[in-house]
């Protein structure tokens, strides 16, 4: 059959089987030139699987892949790159100890043993300017923020001459401003004839950026290439989860109690030795959620770290009157401080340990899990099974290794662990980042439940919607300083918060 030239990508009847799972069942996807096509679906719906076969990482069991009117049978990512396809993965594939330029050149043909780095850096700079992807080619990856690392990934693909970009959940890791920047970049790219597949489960973004949308549900298509103009958020959500979705989460009245967390004049530096917190003071009461809003990298991570003992600081931090600043992490744990860390894979869990072992991470020392010198694994297993049941953790059994769990399920394991011992104070950092609607809903509910139980909660998030609906009070952080605190979150002005986030005004 003759292909129309206009299609950048035409995937037809793609079926991908994994042992025991039908990951993609007869899926079609067409991408026109110069368009942004959203691929929508919950976690585990088969979005990444479908895209991985376009990127040459897995192979379809059946079906055809046509790129620019030519049929391909990719057997490695190299083939796919040669066909002009570049994938920006959710988890960046960069070498932290190398520079931006080195990462971009890594694995490229035609780069000799001796490299004229200056020349390459110049080329990269020019390319970056074209698409307003601002990043210093000489900087090391570990020095970059997540948003900058993403720009490097995009540059890497553009430098390889990709005409078709697959963005796998690109906004999951970004702050509002960064998201706006990314959207601009994407639009600039389509203007220059690039075509983009945009994987996401965030309805607002998809709605605002994409021209057409394909929706996957449990490996099957529930919408094929529908124009975005006919869509609204509700319709998209329905296609995605197969039922109606409630967007606003309501919280009950709750009179806050005693002050649990008291932070006074705290300053700290980040891992690069640059000041990250400047004289921060705040307090959280029992049964209250204090939200911290801010653009990524303005001291949020450091704030969570100084309270939980993972980072040294100056000033005073008291939990129920006990000083925890500059104490080992165990001190905070023993004061009933629980911590849902920003990075659930690298900090919050241990990948090759089982669910059971991950649930005892913090209380294996104490009764009833700890027993003299030994751990009572029977009790640990029983409790893990109960938690798995009540937190609705989807896994074959509690012996399943943490690395096998999806992001949402792993986050539920972490929350289950952090909640099960009735914390007095809970530090939750980006608890819903990168999760699908269903998981976000249940995690937000868990947080509100904890508030109802009288836990003081410090909620650090980059999702303004989430902060506005969950927090009792909301503080905005910028450049390590609290710019202001909003007491009445129901009637707060988003503009005002936005201006505080960028440091334009302070209250």
């Amino acid at each position, binding site marked *: 059959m003759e292909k129309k030239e206009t299609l950048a990508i035409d995937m037809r009847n793609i079926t991908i089987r994994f042992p025991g799972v039908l990951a993609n069942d007869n899926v079609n996807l067409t991408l026109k030139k110069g368009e942004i096509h959203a691929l929508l679906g919950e976690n585990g719906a088969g979005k990444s699987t479908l895209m991985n076969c376009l990127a040459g990482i897995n192979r379809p069991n059946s079906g055809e892949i046509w790129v620019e009117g030519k049929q391909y*049978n990719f057997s490695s990512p190299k083939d796919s790159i040669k066909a002009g396809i570049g994938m920006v993965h959710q988890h960046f594939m960069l070498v932290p100890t190398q520079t931006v330029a080195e990462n971009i050149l890594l694995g490229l043909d035609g780069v000799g043993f001796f490299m004229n780095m200056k020349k390459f850096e110049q080329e990269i700079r020019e390319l970056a300017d074209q698409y307003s992807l601002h990043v210093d080619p000489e900087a090391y990856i570990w020095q970059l923020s997540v948003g900058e690392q993403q720009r490097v990934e995009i540059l890497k693909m553009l430098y390889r001459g990709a005409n078709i970009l697959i963005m796998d959940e690109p906004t999951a890791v970004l702050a509002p401003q960064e998201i706006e920047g990314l959207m601009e970049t994407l639009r600039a790219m389509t203007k220059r004839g690039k075509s983009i597949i945009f994987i996401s489960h965030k309805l607002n973004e998809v709605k605002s950026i994409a021209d057409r949308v394909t929706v996957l549900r449990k490996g099957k298509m529930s919408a094929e290439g529908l124009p975005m103009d006919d869509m609204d958020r509700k319709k998209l959500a329905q296609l995605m989860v197969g039922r109606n979705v409630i967007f606003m989460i309501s919280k009950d009245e709750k009179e806050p109690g005693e002050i649990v967390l008291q932070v006074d004049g705290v300053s700290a530096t980040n891992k690069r030795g640059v000041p990250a917190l400047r004289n921060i003071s705040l307090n959280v009461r029992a049964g209250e959620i204090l939200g911290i809003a801010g653009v990524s990298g303005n001291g949020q991570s450091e704030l969570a770290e100084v309270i939980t003992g993972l980072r040294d600081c100056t000033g005073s931090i008291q939990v129920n009157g006990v000083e925890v600043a500059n104490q080992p992490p165990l001190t905070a744990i023993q004061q009933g401080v629980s911590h849902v860390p920003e990075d659930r894979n690298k900090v919050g869990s241990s990948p090759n340990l089982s669910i059971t*072992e991950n649930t005892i991470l913090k209380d294996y*020392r104490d009764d009833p899990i700890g027993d003299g010198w030994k751990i009572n694994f029977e009790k640990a297993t029983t409790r893990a099974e109960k938690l798995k049941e009540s937190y609705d953790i989807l896994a074959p059994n509690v012996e399943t290794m943490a690395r096998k769990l999806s992001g949402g399920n792993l986050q539920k394991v972490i929350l289950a662990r952090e909640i099960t011992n009735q914390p007095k104070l809970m530090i939750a950092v980006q608890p819903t980042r990168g999760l699908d609607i269903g998981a976000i809903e249940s995690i937000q509910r868990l947080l509100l439940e904890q508030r109802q139980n009288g836990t003081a909660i410090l909620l650090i998030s980059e999702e303004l919607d989430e902060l506005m609906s969950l927090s009792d009070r909301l503080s905005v952080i910028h450049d390590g300083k609290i710019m202001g605190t909003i007491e009445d979150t129901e009637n707060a002005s988003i503009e005002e918060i936005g201006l505080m986030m960028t440091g334009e005004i302070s209250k």
Partner: protein
Amino acid sequence: MRIEIEKRVEDLPKWAPAMLSVAAVVLAFLVGGIILKLIGGQPLRIFSFFIRNTFGSWPAFSDTLVKATPLIFTGLACTVAFKMKMWNIGAEGQLFMGAWFSSFVVLWPIVGPETPRWIVISLMIIFGIVGGAFYGFIPGLLKARYNVNEIITTLMLNYVAFEWVNYWIFDQWSDAGFQLSPTFEKNAWLPRLTDYARQFRAFSGITLHLGVVIALIAVVIIWWILTKSKWGFEVKLIGDNPDAAKYAGINIQRNIILVLMLSGALAGLAGTIEITGVVHRLQQQISPGYGFTGIIVAWLAKLNPTAVILVSILFGALIIASREIQPAGISSMLQGLILFFIISSEVLTRYKVKLVRTNAAAIGAD
């Protein structure tokens, strides 16, 4: 037909790692046999000679076990450290330090020839443990305090230990100018089966000593620590994800020191057992590289303390073989092949290889 390699999604069955280790050994002997055949040898005769001389009779098997005993200790030493991803490659030096400390008890001397045997042996064991632990403490402290790479320090400290022992056997404790210490008095010898030959004729000439029992006790203790204890959990957690361990309130620096001390203590015990059970004096030749072979043992046993016993027996047999079979290189070749196959089989734990019928795979291509 063509071969497809795909990533494993599901977990391997529990028996799979053990099967792979066994298969690696079988393959090593097969390939070794082919090589022997190619150079004009008679592989079957050589292998049957090998088996007869290592497992074929009680005295032969006893010899194998005697060689396996220090390997169990050094294998455990490496297992404990590797569990936490502390790459202790200084078990050889720790073994020598253990041996030196134990020798100190009888050569200084702290005890006399009339001291009861159980006191002498107990003291030597305690000194061996302390000596090895001390020798693990040094790289542990450097790593914990100043983040000095333990691979470098443990490796270099091996040579310090060799020279330290040399100083004493060349000078202080030299036996009539030879480079070895005088033979220990009988009260510093571990009981051997052959010592009871008068009561049991069958024990005559069987050199198996009490050390093998101590080694088995050590296996049980280490197994318990690693799988049941709080501390074992900490070690496992630090090994898998140090950031999560720190987040869980675990003191990583302290554990680095402790784990290297335990590792050193086990290797030190290997030295003690070797000089009290076999050599009965301090000299350079107390170890044909038990400390280094311990690294391979731990790896082949997949860091499983009980599997260390079996692997140690196999490598003990290979050490005997290198003594019995000429050229001695055959045994080194087999060791090398085993390691080669075990490392290559790691691929199979992550990928699976399938035979696919070509027409089935071509669906979708015109």
